[in-house]
Every structure is written in C-alpha cells, then in structure tokens.
C-alpha cells in the first residue's frame, strides 16, 4: 500500500511540519508518495527538506511533481529535480534540463558531503551575495563576509556531525506575506544522526535528567557544546547565531522532535518548540532581511 502525503501549496519551514506529521507515523519501509502536484511555492528549506526526507526512507519514495508550470520551472532552476531523480520515483512532467538565467536562486540545491563542497559553495555564492546583500538588502559591506562565514559554518555542521551528506540552497526573494521586505535565506538540511545522537557520542557524555532533542539543541546552539572534547569546537553555530542576531535575522535549527530559534522582533515563532513530528538529522535555516531605514549596526 502506498501512503499519499500531501504537500501544502506553500512549502516552507513551518508548513513542512504538515508533511512530517503525515510521514512520521509510517515505518521507513512503507511506500509513500509525496504529492506536490498542488504546490505553488517552496522555500529553499522546503526543497532541501524534501530531499532529506527521502533519505529517511528505506523504501524508495515517489513524488508527484507540481502541476503548475511556473512552479516546476522554478524547482528545476533550483536543481531540485536533478537531485530528486536519485532519491524519488518522479511522476509528472518537469523540465528535464536545469534552466539557467536571471533567477532569485543564489545557490541552487547543492550536495554537501566533504570539505571541498564547502569551498565550492562559498566560492560560488560570494560574488552574487555581495551584490544582493549590498544592493537589495541594503546592508553594510560587513554583512557580506559574515554571510559567507555563516554559510560555511552551517554547511560544515553536516560534515562534522551528520555522518552522511546533506543539501544546501540559498535564495533571495521578497517575503511579502510575512515581512514585506526582501530576504536572503540559507537552508541546510540533512537526515543524519542529529544533535542528540551526535552529543551522546561525546566521550564521557552524561545525559542530564531532561535529555531529549530540545536539550541537545540548547546545548549545541545556545551553549556551543560539541561532541568533541576539544573546546575549540562548537563555535560555528555560535558564529552563525551571532551573525543572524547582528543583522536582525532569524536562525532556526530543527533536529528530531524539536526546533530552536533565534527570533528577531519581526517574527513571532517561539524560541523553542518541542513535541514536533520526528525528522531525523538536522535542518538549519538562516533568514537575513533587508535593512529598515534608520537601522545601523
């Protein structure tokens, strides 16, 4: 029996929870069909999380592609189908060759599995990030380097802690619905071991009385704790968190059944959400908004 999983018309980090709520009760070896026919829009998080979701299944899943031509075209430009072909049985028609040209896609979906991949990603993004951050987000030039550093660190999280490869995507768009301003968004998703398991593998790890995904996220994201004894470790996410805070951005990290967020004044997401549907690995999103008039750093 194939279980049909409905994808909401607008797929972002929040609405992706609806997908997970449908998938979580199913055993990994049960056949699922991700029905994205009615999807009209997807954030970088939505697309990379869909790829990571496929990695959690032992029975190869199927995916019905968006029916709307514009949507399928965008997913193709973001290189979603290129990677999805290896993970899903795709149903429906979609552009087989990745279209190029002017696009809000700053970095199409790119696999991250080794250090070289991070060099590649940072190098590719730098020039366009400079133009977008300075001219479109109207942030100081200082924000450009910080952006590349943040991108590098969140990608390295996969290499250091996931135990398997993941995906990164970067996009810039006008976030009319939520913010009414332009944003640049980094999404990094993997279906690896996740923060709880990673920290449990630390030598001499002693779980606290309340040891769960939320506690692990607090340790890693807020306190900069790493599975390595070396106290140098754990600075990457701390740096990314600091960057998001400095530029009035939002950073959220989901792992297992919890999500922790650095919440700016323009967002009303709770700082910590527990009891979410299980999604193995870790999923990171960083949103940097356009500067508002009068804001100086």
């Amino acid at each position, binding site marked *: 029996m194939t279980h049909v999983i409905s994808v909401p018309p607008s797929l972002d980090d929040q609405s992706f929870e609806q997908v997970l709520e449908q998938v979580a009760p199913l055993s990994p070896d049960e056949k699922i069909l991700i029905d994205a026919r009615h999807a009209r829009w997807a954030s970088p998080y939505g697309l990379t999380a869909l790829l990571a979701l496929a990695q959690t299944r032992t029975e190869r899943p199927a995916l019905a592609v968006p029916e709307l031509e514009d949507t399928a075209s965008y997913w193709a430009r973001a290189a979603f189908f290129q990677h999805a072909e290896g993970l899903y049985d795709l149903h429906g028609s979609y552009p087989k060759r990745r279209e190029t040209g002017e696009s809000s896609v700053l970095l199409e979906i790119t696999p991250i599995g080794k250090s070289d991949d991070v060099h590649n990603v940072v190098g590719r993004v*730098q020039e366009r990030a400079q133009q977008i951050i300075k001219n479109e987000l109207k942030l100081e030039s200082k924000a450009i380097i910080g952006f590349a550093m943040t991108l590098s*660190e969140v990608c*390295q999280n996969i*290499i250091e802690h996931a135990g398997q490869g993941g995906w990164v995507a970067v996009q810039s768009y006008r976030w009319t619905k939520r913010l009414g301003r332009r944003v640049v968004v980094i999404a990094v998703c993997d279906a690896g071991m996740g923060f709880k398991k990673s920290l449990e593998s630390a030598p001499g790890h002693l779980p606290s009385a309340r040891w769960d995904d939320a506690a692990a996220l607090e340790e890693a994201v807020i306190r900069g704790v790493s599975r390595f004894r070396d106290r140098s470790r754990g600075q*990457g996410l701390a740096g990314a968190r600091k960057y998001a805070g400095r530029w009035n951005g939002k950073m959220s990290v989901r792992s297992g059944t919890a999500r922790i967020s650095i919440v700016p004044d323009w967002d009303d997401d709770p700082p910590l959400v527990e009891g979410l549907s299980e999604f193995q690995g870790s999923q990171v999103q960083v949103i940097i908004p356009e500067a508002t008039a009068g804001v100086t750093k």
Partner: protein
Amino acid sequence: MMNHIDLSRMLRQTLACDLYSNLVTRSTGAAVRGQIEALLSANSERALTIIDFSQVSMIDFSCADEVVAKLLMRYATDDPPGDAYFLFRGVTEDHCDAIEAVLERHDLALAVEEDGEVRIMGVLPDDERLAWNTTHELGSADAGEVAARMGTDVERATQALDRLQRRRLIMRVDERYVVVGNVTE
C-alpha cells in the same frame, strides 16, 4: 631568521587547487596549520614568521580556530616546540570577526601589522598590555627601563614581560625585550 607565509598560496598548495582563496572549513585549517608547523620545525633557531592574509578573501570561525588559535596555543606554552614568534599581516576587517572570536574563546592575543604599525589583537590583561605598549614605544628595553616607564617595580614589569614572551608577543634578546613587530626589518 624570518619566514614569510602567504596563506593564500599555502592554501592552494594544501588543497592542490588554484580555485580557492577562502580559508574555510576546519579540515582545511588543520592542513594549512600542519604546513606552517612543518616549516617551523625545519629549523631550530629563533624565527619570526610573518603570516600574511593579504590574498585571503575570507576566513571562517572553524578555519581561524585551526590556523590562528591552535597555532598560537601550540607555541604559547612553557615548553614550545621551537622558539617561534608570529606577526600577522594583511588582516582586514573581513578577517577580524573570525580571528577575534577565536582569540577571545581561548584567551589569546597576537601581534598584527597594519599600515606599518603594530598593534595587539585579542585578549590581554591590563598589565601585559601596558608592558607591551611600553616596550613597543621604547623599541628595545630591559625590564628596568620598562618598569620605570610603566611606573611599577622591576619584578612586576619582569613578570608581565615574561608572560608576553610566553605568549610569543615579545622577544628577549640578551637582557633586552623587543616586541615582535619591531624586529621585522
């Protein structure tokens, strides 16, 4: 003796690739540091090494931790592997966030040369900072001269200078102290 290390060139040699000018990832940083340490271990005499960031576009936290912090920590001990001193050159605002973050995390300081001037970056107690500034102003001085200028006793000045030497921020040449930036040319 003096070494000049162009980090960008060393990065390309390390990765065997000409495409990258960004010092990113922990493994890259560890490999670059390994090359620097190999270069330093090749000679046993006192050496001032200029670590040149001029051609490095950016450095992230993880790489800064490996290339800068761990390098300094290896030599800023009571029993360093060699008599090595470091002067950082070409460090711009683009590199500062990462470097300052790792220095702060490990309570480290380094000497950086900027527009021909040498300054300290990182964490340094007030007495050591004063002793460093005083020695820098004097160019070359013994503990008594530094103490007199600082307005403290010789014992306290000597302690501060010795700690600065341990941090590889000051060299002791015979009975005189010289900050690393003053002996580059």
